[in-house]
């Protein structure tokens, strides 16, 4: 009860310390610059630890595969094999980096754009694409994979992340939940409520904002006037960081820190990763309507994969042979995916009624019977 004090309002050292501990670095944390050189002092005020070589090599490998998967998926839309695909080309450092910091039993709450994060979790790529192929709403088992169904209603998934994180903590488990969200979706009320719930319940959640600069056509400047999105954390008492989202090493370093902190009972953490969506919002979008080609070209020079690869090479952690190997692996991954996606499985229409309730209500039994009769009649006609 600060109002109680008869203070003269010179800066309260405790408050100042608390405030400083919550605010992000004034510039995004960056470990490796666009040319692949290690940035001295890039660890920022919190001194984030450099990830292990093993983690970094694996992150790079996953990014290469992820990129190839993403490009393949966009191609599949052109062949009519996917209803829609929201590409994350250019955002691999975020999607892979964030997931690499997690254990398999940690929870992930992805959006529609986070397919690369899903395959990084080793979710079958065909199961990953089930939603976007139009077969079903979700192709994998969210409970078994500790990975929620990809979420379309923006920002809503973050509250689920807070809830499951709190629930797991109550059960005495040390799992963490990581929720992905886009820059635009931070404007939704649910973003606010999720951060606040997580903070109040000290839930082990890492909120990971992929600030790819656009919400469909709307640029960040029309979305917020905050110095950066990471400055939203302090309003909830949640420590925050901004990170160069095209620098996988920095992403990993910051997420490693946030996850460990949450795991140790330190509560939620907010990360804003500055990145860029190289492709259009989805294959159905025409990005030329709202942004200049120059901007894209410029961001191409900051490619996350090339950057990490350059650093790994400079450290002797990968060489031509290894690059070729991983490129081949990615190619094989894409080929296998394309082949499997060429099959167009029938979906049983009667499955519509299976999971509305645990047991269908009488109303649904009636409707199911109607549909069964219709299908039988159709088949009869066709015979």
């Amino acid at each position, binding site marked *: 009860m600060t109002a109680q004090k008869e203070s003269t309002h010179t800066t309260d050292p405790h408050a100042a310390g608390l405030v400083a501990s919550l605010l992000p670095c004034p510039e995004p944390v960056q470990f490796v610059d666009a040319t692949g050189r290690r940035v001295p002092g890039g660890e920022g005020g919190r001194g984030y630890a450099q990830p292990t070589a093993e983690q970094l090599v694996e992150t790079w490998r996953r990014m290469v595969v992820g990129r190839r998967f993403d490009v393949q998926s966009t191609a599949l839309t052109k062949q009519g094999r996917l209803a829609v695909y929201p590409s994350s080309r250019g955002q691999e450092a975020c999607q892979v980096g964030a997931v690499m910091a997690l254990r398999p039993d940690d929870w992930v709450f992805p959006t529609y754009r986070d397919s690369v994060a899903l395959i990084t979790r080793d979710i079958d790529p065909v199961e990953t694409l089930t939603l976007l192929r139009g077969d079903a709403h979700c192709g994998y088992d969210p409970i078994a994979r500790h990975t929620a169904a990809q979420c379309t209603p923006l920002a809503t998934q973050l509250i689920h992340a807070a809830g499951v994180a709190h629930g797991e903590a109550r059960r005495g488990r040390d799992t963490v939940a990581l929720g992905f969200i886009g820059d635009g979706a931070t404007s939704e009320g649910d973003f606010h409520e999720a951060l606040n719930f997580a903070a109040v319940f000290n839930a082990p959640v890492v909120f990971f904002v992929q600030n790819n600069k656009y919400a469909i056509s709307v640029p960040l400047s029309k979305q917020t006037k905050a110095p950066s999105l990471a400055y939203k954390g302090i309003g909830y008492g949640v420590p925050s960081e901004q990170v160069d989202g095209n620098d996988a090493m920095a992403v990993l370093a910051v997420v490693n820190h946030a996850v460990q902190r949450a795991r140790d009972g330190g509560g939620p953490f907010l990360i804003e990763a500055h990145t860029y969506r190289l492709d259009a919002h989805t294959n159905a979008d025409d990005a030329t309507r709202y942004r200049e080609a120059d901007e894209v070209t410029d961001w191409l020079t900051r490619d996350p994969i090339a950057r990490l690869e350059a650093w790994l090479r400079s450290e002797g952690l990968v060489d031509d042979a290894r690059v070729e190997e991983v490129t081949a692996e990615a190619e094989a991954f894409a080929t296998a995916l394309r082949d499997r996606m060429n099959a167009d499985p029938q979906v049983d229409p009667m499955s519509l009624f299976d999971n509305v309730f645990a047991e269908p209500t*009488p109303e649904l039994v009636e409707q199911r019977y109607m549909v069964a009769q219709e299908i039988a009649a159709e088949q009869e006609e066709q015979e």
Partner: protein
Amino acid sequence: MTTLTMAQALNTALRDAITQDDDVVVFGEDVGTLGGVFRITDGLTRDFGEERCFDTPLAESGIVGFAVGMCMAGFRPVVEMQFDAFGYPAFEQVVSHVAKMRNRTAGAVQLPMVIRFPYAGGIGGVEHHSDSSEAYYAHTPGLKVVSPSTPADAYGLLRQAIEDPDPVVFMEPKALYWAKGEVQTPGQPLPFGRAAVRREGTDVTLIAYGPSVPVALKAADAAREEGWDVEVVDLRTITPFDDDTVARSVRRTGRCVVVTESHGFAGVGAEVAARVQERCFHSLAAPVLRVSGLDIPYPAPKLEHTYLPGVDRVLDAVARLQWDDEPDTRWLDSARGGAA
């Protein structure tokens, strides 16, 4: 058997559920220390600890979304929306997630949660404190929508709601919180989808739920004086809907009035009327009529008695089940004449 108010019966149901199942957790605005503004959660925090019943920040979308997440960790949350209209901020969570989760995950993610709504009016509340929003939820596939009219049902239906593997929208008629009745405690869950014939009769069937059941019963008493023998069916659950009990009654009586407190247009009463005429057409001697709240925003306390479908309005409808094509348009025609 004990005599309890509906509020006490609900409190007892929560206690019994918390005692029997470690996964049951109760949370919402003011449900902890205060015990809820209607005291439905009275003493739960004191007796079972913050672990089992706790206050949340003031954000309904957050509360419902948090419950979704807790279900994913295996809990069975029972959350309270403080008043019916204050559930609207959670509408997206309810419609886009709670209702659809099992379906969109092919059964993998179950949400055995209960959302409790003190609803409807008749208690002199100022604006936004007396809405009836059951139709919004009933129209949404994937939700079970329940409303008790007696303390015994309140107990049994809430127990069932908590045990149910599906999300349940549990509508508690505020005006009946203090109504008393006999309740067996600890008691059994009352299965969903079974309407109750509250009073038998031969001439006309009144169909109601929640706050409208006592109105229907009073109307039935009054109708007796006018020479009508009225049957009263209490739906208890809106989804699942008990067509059997309803149709059996109407086929026998041949006449039907649906009584709901909510706005009439595209409400649950419309569904009931549509279903009844679909199923009992050739047994009907008159159209199925609806008596409902007016299609205006719920009024200020001084006018709520005009808004609420009371005994007289129900009796008027019963009287109009006689028996030609004109009665329902009479008003409209006269009114238009008057208005022109």
